[in-house]
């Protein structure tokens, strides 16, 4: 019996192919993920972009071109400038504040940090319209209670706070999503930081401030860039605040102009699509920049040692707590209480009525013939989307960060795209996809179609947040997993997911909360059969039933809060919050 060298053993073609495939499995998985994500994202966006080049039926030589139509809308330039002013003002104020707050919450021994952090979750869950109405009650120039108190106390002679102003608009942005979403996302990122990095800095003689500026913040670059970019894009899209506070003072922004086009009869989808596409074009370079800045060097802060010591605030501990707790109570608990109280008031903001309080709105809303079915649909939608999102977003983010594939960057870029086109415009693209792709057409008219759309709409938020978390993980963790014999799936399942679980929990709850209150993306796919509570709320609002609308809004917030509390309890029960 003779022996032959191994590579000289003839192998079958099948075995050869199998071996090659096995060796290239990372590339294959990345390619499959990219293909699936690109299809799901580019189909609806492509539909919208395509329509912007289809002439419409308006008369005139250039009137047929949607791009001309959109940008010849009266006052468009001023509206774009107004948008830039608001976005810049909000980001300049909110970014340093949020970074500071997150650092305090995650890196110091501030008392009640978990509770304060949870209050920022509450801020995120509160509907911007509800919060704005609450602030109007306090800061309206004519009947605002705060102005009245100051006048009655003799401190001022005329109202000094006016929410119907540029700074009023900025203030409402800050107290709705401007700060809360940043703190929600940055705090876990700061918490992931291995404290040995700071300790090394202290040993080298740097003080806390210098350590923060020279060591901690540079390590947080990917997280801060992602959060900043998300906030800027979101700032370009939101329109409720400017619609209510800006319209009476003739302050239109880009998104309110887009709304005007969409609200036309017939709706000018194509012209509105051009505005959406213009944002896409403007944001793309920022996405590329963000990608470059996040990947040009290692930002790993989660290593094998896992030091988690907190900086002692010493005598500043309680003053810092009072300032932080007071601020967050003002921005979260006060609007929350006003929202709940408003649902029990006969007329919101009228305290001089013969009977101020009532259960009538709750009775009307809960007895609504569609309430129970809408609630059930909403829970299916929220939980369905959240569960689907957490699993798949993690895989997509992993491929965008770790896959040994040239498609890594492309995956990252493409997941940003659903965020860059306003939901109200993209909804038409989603509608086309849901109807024209056979497998999705089966879901049309069901909650399944809404889950699909909500999954896509939340993808940028979810994937980017998980991606940042993965960028913070050192590759040595995975290498250790492989050394002890784990394949990439096992490493992903047994090491990456557990370490990233605090972030996954945050993503899950954010997706859940965003999904159950969202209307714009799912509006065109909503029918009587799959109506959810947010759509019912819109129906109440459109029909002028403000009390029942407030009740439905309150129910949505309470369900979000309940889900958040459960997530936190479950997380701590299973030790997930060790870092998170």
């Amino acid at each position, binding site marked *: 019996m003779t022996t032959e060298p191994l590579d000289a053993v003839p192998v079958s073609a099948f075995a050869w192919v199998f071996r090659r495939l096995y060796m290239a499995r990372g590339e294959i998985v990345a390619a499959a993920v990219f293909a699936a994500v690109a299809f799901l994202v580019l189909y609806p966006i492509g539909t919208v972009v395509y329509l912007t080049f289809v002439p419409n039926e308006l008369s005139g030589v250039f009137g047929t071109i949607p791009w001309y139509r959109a940008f010849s809308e009266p006052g468009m330039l001023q509206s774009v400038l107004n948008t830039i002013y608001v976005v810049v003002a909000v980001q300049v104020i909110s970014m340093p504040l949020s970074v500071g707050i997150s650092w305090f919450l995650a890196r110091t021994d501030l008392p009640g940090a978990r509770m304060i952090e949870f209050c920022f979750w509450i801020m995120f869950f509160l509907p911007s319209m509800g919060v704005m109405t609450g602030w109007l009650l306090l800061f309206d120039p004519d009947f605002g209670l705060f102005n009245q108190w100051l006048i009655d106390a003799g401190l001022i002679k005329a109202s000094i706070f006016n929410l119907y102003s540029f700074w009023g608009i900025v203030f409402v942005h800050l107290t709705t999503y401007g700060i809360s979403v940043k703190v929600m996302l940055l705090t876990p990122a700061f918490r992931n930081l291995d404290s040995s990095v700071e300790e090394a800095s202290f040993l080298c003689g740097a003080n806390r401030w210098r350590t923060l500026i020279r060591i901690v913040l540079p390590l947080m670059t990917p997280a801060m860039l992602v959060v900043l970019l998300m906030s800027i894009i979101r700032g370009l899209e939101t329109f409720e605040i400017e619609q209510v506070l800006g319209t009476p003072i003739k302050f239109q922004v880009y998104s309110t102009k887009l709304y005007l086009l969409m609200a036309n009869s017939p709706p000018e989808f194509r012209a509105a699509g051009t505005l959406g596409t213009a944002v896409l074009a403007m944001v793309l370079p920022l996405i590329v920049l963000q990608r470059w800045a996040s990947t040009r060097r290692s930002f790993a802060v989660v290593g094998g040692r896992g030091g988690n010591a907190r900086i002692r605030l010493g005598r500043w501990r309680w003053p810092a707590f009072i300032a932080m707790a007071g601020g967050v109570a003002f921005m979260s608990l006060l609007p929350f209480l006003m929202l709940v109280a408003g649902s029990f008031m006969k*007329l919101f903001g009228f305290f001089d009525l013969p009977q101020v309080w009532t259960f009538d709105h709750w009775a009307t809303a809960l007895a609504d013939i569609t309430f129970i079915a809408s609630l059930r649909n909403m829970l299916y939608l929220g939980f369905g989307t959240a569960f689907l999102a957490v699993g798949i977003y993690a895989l997509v983010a992993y491929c965008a960060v770790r896959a040994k594939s040239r498609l890594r960057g492309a995956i990252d870029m493409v997941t940003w795209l659903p965020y860059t086109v306003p939901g109200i415009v993209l909804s038409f693209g989603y509608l086309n996809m849901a109807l024209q792709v056979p497998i999705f057409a089966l879901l049309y008219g069901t909650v399944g179609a809404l889950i699909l759309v909500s999954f896509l709409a939340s993808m940028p938020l979810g994937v980017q947040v998980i991606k940042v978390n993965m960028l913070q993980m050192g590759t040595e963790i995975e290498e250790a997993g492989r050394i002890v014999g784990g394949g990439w799936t096992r490493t992903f399942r047994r090491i990456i997911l557990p370490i990233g679980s605090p972030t996954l929990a945050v993503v899950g709850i954010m997706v859940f909360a965003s999904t159950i209150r969202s209307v714009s993306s799912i509006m065109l796919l909503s029918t009587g059969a799959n109506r959810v509570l947010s759509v019912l709320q819109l*129906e109440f609002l459109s029909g002028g039933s403000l009390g029942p609308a407030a009740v439905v809004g309150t129910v949505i917030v309470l369900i979000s809060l309940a889900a958040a509390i459960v997530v936190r309890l479950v997380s701590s029960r299973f030790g997930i919050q060790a870092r998170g």
Partner: protein
Amino acid sequence: MIMNDVVSRLWRAMPVAVLMLVAMAGAASAQASWQAEWDKTVAAAKTEGKVVVGMSPSTVRRDFLLKQWKQDYPEIELSLSIISSSGFVPQVTTERAAGKYLWDIWHSGPNFEVIKAGLLDPLQPEMILPDVKDPALWGGWDDAFYDDGKQLEMGLVNDLESPYYNAAVIAPERAKAEGLKVMLDPAYKGKIVWFDPRVTGPGEPFLSLFAHVFGDEGLKKLVVDQDPVFVGNMNDAAQAIVRGKAVIAVAGKPQSNLADYTQAGVKIDVRPFGATPETAYRGTDGAALGVFTKRPHPNATRVFVNWIMSKRIAALMSVAVQYDSRRKDVRPLDPNFTMLPGAFYIDAQRAENHAREYMEKVREMRPQ
């Protein structure tokens, strides 16, 4: 002699009697005919089991329809979707391009895009019940239908709308004497609140009325010189009046907009400028009716059409939603605020009144 007289009279009355008998037989036959058709349609509708309706936002009307229908036809499910009239047409045309024909009934404001897209069938062939198909009860088909061919979209509601004012600030006598011209008084500059007329909605139809009353120059004066405050919803308009920030409101009807406030005990005397053609326009309250082509439930559609147009439902719905029915045999809610007989009113939702063009002009006059 007497006998002859009786026979002679009977003989003379014979033709009349015969005619009466024929007429009665004809009527009985006609009744038998529509009744048979109706029974057959209802039976077939029950087999279909469902009717799908897209309607404009009104929770009060939605609740009424759902409850009343369930009471009357428990075997047929009523699937009601609140639709945005601007987004609905692209939605349905996209569905149809994908081979999905899901809708039976259009029950929203008159919408010319629905007609232009060829989505509606003639309504009259769906009418079976005699009182439903009597044009006299609806003021004639020319008046009832909003499309050029007078067959596709029919208004069910007489919605007479006038701007309203705070009577504690503007004397009712003056409002009565001067009508809408009061709105051009410089004293009320910045004191007029208006549901944003640059957006399709309840503020926009007033443009046709103002253009009709003031002319183009007057409209410009109102929009630019008087600097009205545009708001995004009805409640902001009502609240501006209640809080004293505005004196005149151009946004729907005061009795419905301010109902929550007055019922809660807010003391305010708010009145519409009037029900004359110079102070009010006529609309449909988003309650026009049409049937879709290639509808999936044709029999249930017929039942719904006849049901919602019947006198009983028209009367009940009028009370429930607080808008007058167009049916002449249904009593108006407020006899003092109805259309003057024979007068011409601007029907702002008819194409010939150019509300859309005025909207474009206002966008240019007030770009921010």
